[in-house]
């Protein structure tokens, strides 16, 4: 059965810039916004855009991601021609290798793509928070009869040199693509979202794989090669909220963005962000609870004070505890009288009674998964 569009999510390796938070889980499985995990965003976007078959490329603890994603049922991606497939490297008749770059990861799964037989392939990354209708981008791709279409967003000129920058003509056709230009001539940054016509992609991936000098990266190698051959590459401008959460600081900041009077994404409307739910009850606010400017998810129980923070599934904030400007990940416990400020508290971590985890803007404190923080232990600070 030929499908229209197949999505491939580059979920990456261990995501070392997230440090302790990814000791036991892959980056896309990192909790976000009290209820979600990062991968909920691209998966929900796919479902909301009518794309029902998704490959997730990862080589780091794939079964935990699999355990979370299952067959995609939570996102209604488990239809007969759909499904979510976790794709670690595998052994083929031609041998086997770990993924050497974004393009190589896709290349190694060309068999999977052929099995799915799509007309178009949508490539996404697994560490961005945003809500986008890919079907509009796909529509542009078809109307322009493009070989490739790249999602772009305007960034402040001052930051443009941190991104892959596109120069386009009036029709949106891409003339030049420069990774991290020192003197950017445009502020249209690549979002790392690509739609390729499947056959075109395959041709370039096979060429790239043979090129021993290549780093096998879409931005550095494949897109430039396509442009060099005068391929029909177009840009698709995106105007909504879009945030890379690849670092502790940006992860914390993106969480805080959702505490604004008007959250940056409508996560509960028609194009809602879905997630795999656990059977937990409504949360309970104790007799002395004091919670303001915060987001609190199901299954938690709060007796203390929470201000401008995110309290995830199953968290317990004990009497007299004080959580401010922080993200408390699922099933963490904040003990009696403990103080948490400008911090990210990892899943299942126990901040014992009286302990303190205090960071500051620009130096967010982080505790990993399943840790025990006593009043004596000094919480590790994230390298920024």
């Amino acid at each position, binding site marked *: 059965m030929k499908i229209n569009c197949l999505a491939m999510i580059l979920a990456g390796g261990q995501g070392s810039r997230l440090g302790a938070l990814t000791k036991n889980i892959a980056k896309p499985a990192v909790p976000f*916004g*009290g*209820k979600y995990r990062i991968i909920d965003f691209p998966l929900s976007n796919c479902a909301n855009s009518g794309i029902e078959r998704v490959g997730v490329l990862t080589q780091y603890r794939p079964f935990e991601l699999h355990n979370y994603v299952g067959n995609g*049922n*939570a996102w209604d991606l488990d239809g007969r021609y759909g499904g979510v497939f976790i794709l670690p490297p595998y052994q083929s008749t031609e041998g086997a290798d770990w993924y050497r770059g974004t393009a190589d990861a896709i290349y190694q799964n060309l068999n999977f793509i052929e099995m799915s037989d799509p007309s178009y392939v949508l490539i996404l990354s697994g560490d961005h928070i945003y809500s986008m209708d890919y079907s509009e981008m796909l529509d542009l791709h078809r109307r322009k009869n493009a070989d490739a279409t790249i999602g772009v967003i305007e960034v402040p000129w001052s930051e443009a040199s941190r991104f892959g920058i596109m120069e386009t003509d009036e029709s949106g056709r891409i003339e030049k693509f420069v990774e991290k230009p020192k003197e950017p001539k445009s502020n249209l940054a690549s979002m790392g979202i690509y739609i390729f016509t499947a056959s075109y992609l395959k041709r370039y991936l096979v060429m790239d794989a043979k090129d021993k000098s290549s780093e096998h990266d879409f931005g550095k190698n494949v897109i430039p090669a396509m442009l060099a051959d005068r391929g029909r590459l177009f840009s698709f401008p995106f105007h909504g909220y879009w945030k890379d959460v690849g670092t502790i600081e940006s992860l914390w900041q993106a969480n805080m963005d959702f505490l604004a*009077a008007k*959250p940056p994404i409508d*996560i*509960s409307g028609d194009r*809602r*962000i*879905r*997630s795999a*739910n*656990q*059977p*937990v*009850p*409504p*949360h*309970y*606010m*104790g*007799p*002395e*609870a*004091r*919670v*303001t*400017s*915060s*987001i*609190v*998810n*199901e*299954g938690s*129980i709060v007796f203390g004070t*929470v201000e401008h923070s995110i309290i995830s599934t199953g968290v317990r904030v004990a009497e007299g505890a004080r959580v401010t400007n922080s993200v408390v990940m699922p099933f963490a416990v904040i003990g009696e009288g403990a103080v948490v400020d400008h911090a990210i508290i990892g899943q299942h971590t126990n901040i014992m009674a009286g302990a303190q985890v205090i960071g500051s803007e620009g130096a967010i404190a982080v505790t990993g998964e399943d840790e025990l923080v006593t009043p004596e232990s000094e919480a590790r600070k994230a390298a920024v």
Partner: protein
Amino acid sequence: MDRREFWLNRLDEVNPKLKNVMGLVDLQQDSSYLGDLTKKRTIASLPFAGRYRIVDFALSSMVNSGIRNVGVLLPEKSRSILDHIRSGKDWDLARHHKGLCYLPPAPADNGRKEGDLKNYYANLDFIESNSEEYVLLARADCIYNMDFNPIMRFHENTRADVTIVVSPAAHDDMARGIVVKMAENGLVEDITVKPDIKKGEMRALGVYIARKDCFCSGVRRAYEHGGTDFRVDLVLEAFKNRTIFAYEHRGFSRRICSMLAYYETNMAMLQPDIWKEMFMREGHPIFTKVKDMAPVQYKEGSNVTNTLVANGCEIYGTVENSVLFRGVKIAPGAVVRDSIIMQNGFIQDNARTNCVVCDKNVVVSAGKVLEGAKTYPVFVGKNVRI
């Protein structure tokens, strides 16, 4: 060792499974005691504790106890319950082999008086065609989180024909129900069906265990002799010569037998130890239909204490000793006390509710005040705008 023995020997071990028991959930409960709350729904589909419906408790208890084959006796008005349970997937009952089976109500017989017994009779063929040797029936009008494994062991050990689960009534109970008198060892000495039940009386929680052949022959006998009523014609009459034992459930349990009972049972969930017993027991979660709502937004100035809050709410005002269902909005300056606000309720700026039960989609406009008493909560019907 036969198959049954084999599984029963395992009950004390790691993975208790009532593999030899088929579950029956009866949703056709008389709901006239609940007034307007159940005008357009069955008791089974009454919203409870922020995100649940009453039926979730019986169904989840079955599934957590290891029952994998459940027949659901549907009431006349079944759309809301079909929409809630759907395939049974959220209870892990969507299976190719066994799993959930709907037993729709039998069409009316010409001229014959109707009653709840008829639907049992009409579905005997289904019940008998299943391979399990035991039937565990739960009539979905009670709140509990029960492990049926010890009850099954009790049933086996007493060699009872029928085991009835009972608990002493926490309050006077104005609804019709079964009251038992039992000996110390649990042997039932007398069963009565009473129109009201006094506090402390041992009343049935609607959970029955029997061998399937005993259960089916009882139903057949009762119905074919003109019986219509489950309690009188089956339990009192047809089981007359059977050995009946009563098992006292000592955990939390309440019958939802009146508006006040509904109100008080919701409020009981605000006690953290009851909240934990009901919802946070390892291996015994209460399942319900997944709606995937966003987490709750507590805005600047919000002040919420001793309250259960379901996802999807947005809170600017003050809430005390209350239960907020999914998608409720409490505007700035609004004060909600000792109240139950069901799905999508909207308490507007500076409005106040005190001891109020608001059904779905109720709007209390800016500045309006509603006040009931803890012994007599005010009820506001579905979609009403005040």
